[in-house]
Structure formats: structure tokens, C-alpha cells
């Protein structure tokens, strides 16, 4: 019973893994983009902390470790959250997941630095806009690291918007405004950070992978809704998506050899267009509150688990100071 709080982060993790993809779909994108990655990181971290605690309890049974902490193995064995092999497995799992998370951080950091230097080498840009000569209709946002970029202040959007001449020629002025507003929304909303957080949580906890994939969709939806708000016409945004998507498909027929890259750049064009033709998303305050509650439970559980482990180790201490005072 005293070990009950310890399982709360794991339970929260299971709930989030099961409901995450639906939550991202149902919540308004603006809320989902900000709330879910945060919840994912907290829950994944809580799960990691519990696994680490379990692993440590097993580790404390090793005589050499017990000697360092001056713990009595007999007292430690007396009250335990579960069987020792389970604790060992938890510890090992924690190390594997931690390694995966660190790898994800290094990978993202490496790429962010490369993007940053690419941005710097783009040279001529005005208000963050870079037009490139390219036959493939394309537009994307490149976030830059804060500061250290000449002319960055002038752009005011924290990155560069890259648009190909092929896309510009294809679209009407209203549609070009949609593309620019969409990419600006990505940069101003720091969408890359939320995607990074979700990917990090998924690396640290594979159960959250499906949710992380939906976060990418939510990010695109959020930028679409921002663009729709700016131009005041949801249908225009849907039409821009459809026309740009079809033009791109015509310009670059699917190449089977680059299947990995294609899968990675899935931007859910059809789903987004359909969503824009449906009524604007509803607030869904209760669902959002439920998600916040889940995060709270995970946090509380993690804190309680840490406290319980600490108590357990304290009780197992051979207490030489106490004996000496007699």
C-alpha cells in the first residue's frame, strides 16, 4: 500500500499513451501543440524516475553499494515494491531509455546547429524571407538559434521562411499570403521546440511515439488555423494546401528509393485540408483540464515515490549515530 504512489507516473504514462493520439486530434491545435508535448515530457520523465528508483533499490542490495550507503540488506529486503528481478529489469530499461533520449537530444542539437549555419549562409534575406530558384514547389520554415545572426532583428520572426520560385509562380497573391502566414506562425509559435519536446519524450518512452507523430500534425493544423485567422478565410487555406500539394506531387513523383525521407516529411495535406473545410475547432476545456490533471498526478506520484524510496533507505540505515548516543 505504501508503494502505491510509485505506480502513479506509470499509470499516467499508460493513460497518455492510450489517449494521446485522440487528445491531439480532438483538442484545438493551438492548445494541443502546447499542452501535449509538455505533458509527454513530464510523464516520460516521471516514468524514468520511477524506473530509476526501482533500479536503485535493486542496486542497494549489492554488498559494495550497501556498504557505501551503510544500508542493511535485510532491512532493505523487508519492504520492497516488488520482486528484485522486476526492479533489476526496471533499472536496465531506464538506462536504455535514457540512452535513447540522450541520442535524440544530440541528434536534434546537431541538426539545429547545421540549420543555423545554413541560415547564416543564406545571406541575402529581407524580413526573414528567402526565395530560392527551384522547380519543385516547396516552402518551409527554418528556425534559428536565438541571437548571433546578423539581420535577425530585422526579421523579427526567429528564423527564415524559404519559398521556391516554382511555388510562388503557381499561387495567387491570396494563396501566397496563406503560405507566408502559415510559415510565420510556425516560427512565431516556436513549433519546432514543441515537436522536439514530443520527439524527446517519445525517445525516452516508446509508448508515446504515436502521440509524438500526431503532434506534428497538430503543429501543421495550428499554423493552418493561424493563417486562416490572418486571411479570414478557411476555405482559401484549404484550397492553397490542395493546389500546392497537387503541384508538388506533379513535380516530384514518388521515388521509391527515398521512401524513408518521404515518410519523415509527412505533412498530412489531405487531413489538414479536410479539417479546414469543417467548422473551426471547439475549445474542449474539460479535456484540456483532464490532461493538466494527469500531469499533476504524474508529478505528485513521482515526488511521492522519491520520498518513499528515501524513507525506505533511511529506515534501512544501520544508524551507528543513534546507537552511539546511548
Amino acid at each position, binding site marked *: 500500500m505504501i508503494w502505491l504512489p510509485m505506480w502513479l507516473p506509470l499509470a499516467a504514462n499508460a493513460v497518455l499513451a492510450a489517449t494521446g493520439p485522440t487528445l491531439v486530434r480532438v483538442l484545438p491545435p493551438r492548445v494541443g501543440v502546447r499542452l501535449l508535448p509538455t505533458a509527454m515530457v513530464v510523464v516520460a520523465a516521471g516514468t524514468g524516475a520511477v524506473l530509476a528508483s526501482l533500479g536503485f533499490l535493486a542496486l542497494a542490495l549489492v554488498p559494495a553499494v550497501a556498504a557505501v550507503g551503510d544500508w542493511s540488506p535485510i532491512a532493505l529486503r523487508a519492504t520492497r515494491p516488488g520482486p528484485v528481478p522486476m526492479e533489476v529489469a526496471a533499472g536496465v530499461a531506464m538506462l536504455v531509455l535514457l540512452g535513447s533520449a540522450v541520442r535524440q537530444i544530440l541528434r536534434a542539437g546537431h541538426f539545429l546547429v547545421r540549420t543555423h549555419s545554413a541560415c547564416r*549562409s543564406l545571406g541575402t534575406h529581407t524580413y526573414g524571407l528567402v526565395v530560392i530558384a527551384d522547380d519543385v514547389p516547396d516552402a518551409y520554415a527554418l528556425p534559428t538559434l536565438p541571437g548571433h545572426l546578423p539581420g535577425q532583428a530585422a526579421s523579427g520572426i526567429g528564423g527564415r521562411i524559404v519559398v521556391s520560385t516554382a511555388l510562388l509562380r*503557381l499561387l495567387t*497573391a491570396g494563396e501566397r499570403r496563406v503560405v507566408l502566414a502559415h510559415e510565420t506562425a510556425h516560427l512565431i509559435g516556436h513549433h*519546432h521546440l514543441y*515537436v522536439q519536446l514530443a520527439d524527446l519524450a517519445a525517445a525516452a518512452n516508446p509508448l508515446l511515439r504515436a502521440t509524438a507523430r500526431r503532434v506534428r500534425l497538430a503543429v501543421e493544423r495550428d499554423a493552418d488555423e493561424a493563417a486562416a485567422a490572418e486571411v479570414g*478565410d478557411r476555405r482559401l487555406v484549404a484550397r492553397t494546401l490542395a*493546389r500546392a500539394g497537387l503541384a508538388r506531387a506533379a513535380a516530384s513523383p*514518388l521515388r521509391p528509393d527515398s521512401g524513408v525521407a518521404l515518410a519523415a516529411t509527412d505533412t498530412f495535406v489531405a487531413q489538414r485540408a479536410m479539417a479546414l473545410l469543417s467548422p473551426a475547432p471547439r475549445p474542449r476545456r474539460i479535456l484540456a483540464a483532464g490532461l493538466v490533471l494527469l500531469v499533476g498526478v504524474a508529478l505528485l506520484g513521482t515526488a511521492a515515490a522519491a520520498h518513499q524510496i528515501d524513507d525506505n533507505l533511511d529506515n534501512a540505515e544501520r544508524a551507528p549515530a543513534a546507537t552511539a548516543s546511548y
Partner: protein
Amino acid sequence: MAMSTPSSPRGGRRPRGALEREILTCLAAADGPLTPSQVLVSLNGDLAYTTVMTTLSRLHDKGVLRRELVGRAYTYSLTADPEGAHSIAVAQRMRRLLETGGDRAGVLAHFIADLAPEDEQLLVDLIEDSRPAGRRDDDESPLTGPGAGHP
């Protein structure tokens, strides 16, 4: 910052720099230099003429636009040729960056990417359906035939 953050009657306010970016893409898409009134027309006229003119001349002051007096009006074009050598070199560098798995790190946000084949028909239908809604907005280019007539 400048005095103009014009808002459109049907839309919300433009964020800072948005009008400048729209004008730049408008000139990049055009076949030749444009006069302020041509820019205004291609931006669908939800802006005041003076706003467009002021913005164009400010962009010229910054050295982004080239200005020439043709007859009684100035015409504007991009200083950096979008089809020029620099632009092509940049495009190649960016493509290399994209092809080395950058999206796996979640750093880039594409407007569109390659479509699943089953999505194509859906989008074609969608364009057909949205035709009446699009009419009031902009009709300067045909709704289908992407890239048609471009070099």
C-alpha cells in the same frame, strides 16, 4: 518600426513584416518589374495605394528592390534575381540539408510534402468543391494545371 501594420477588411492584422514579405513574393513571382499599382492589384486591393507605395520605397531604401523610372511611374524589381546564381547555389545547399534526414530531428516545418497517392484524388475533388468560395477572393490564375506555362 514603421507606421503601417495594415489590416484587411476580411482578415486579421498582418504581423510585422508580413506585408513586406507578401510584396517580395509578389515581385519574385512576377515576370518583370511592377509599378506600385500593379503590385496593389496583384495583392487583391485590400490595401491602400499609399501603403503599398510607402512599403515599396522603404524596401528600395534598404537596397532590397531596384527602382527604375518608366514613363511617369517607378517600377520595382528584386535586387537579388530569384533565378540568379546565388539563389540556385542556396537552393542546392538547402536541398542537401533537407536530404540528410533533417526532418527526423523535427526542426523543419514544411508547408506541403509529397502526397500519398490516395490523397491526390481527394485534393482534386476538394479544389472542385471550393471553386465557388474561391471566386470572390482571387482569380488571377487558373485553379488547376499547376506550373502551367512557366519556364
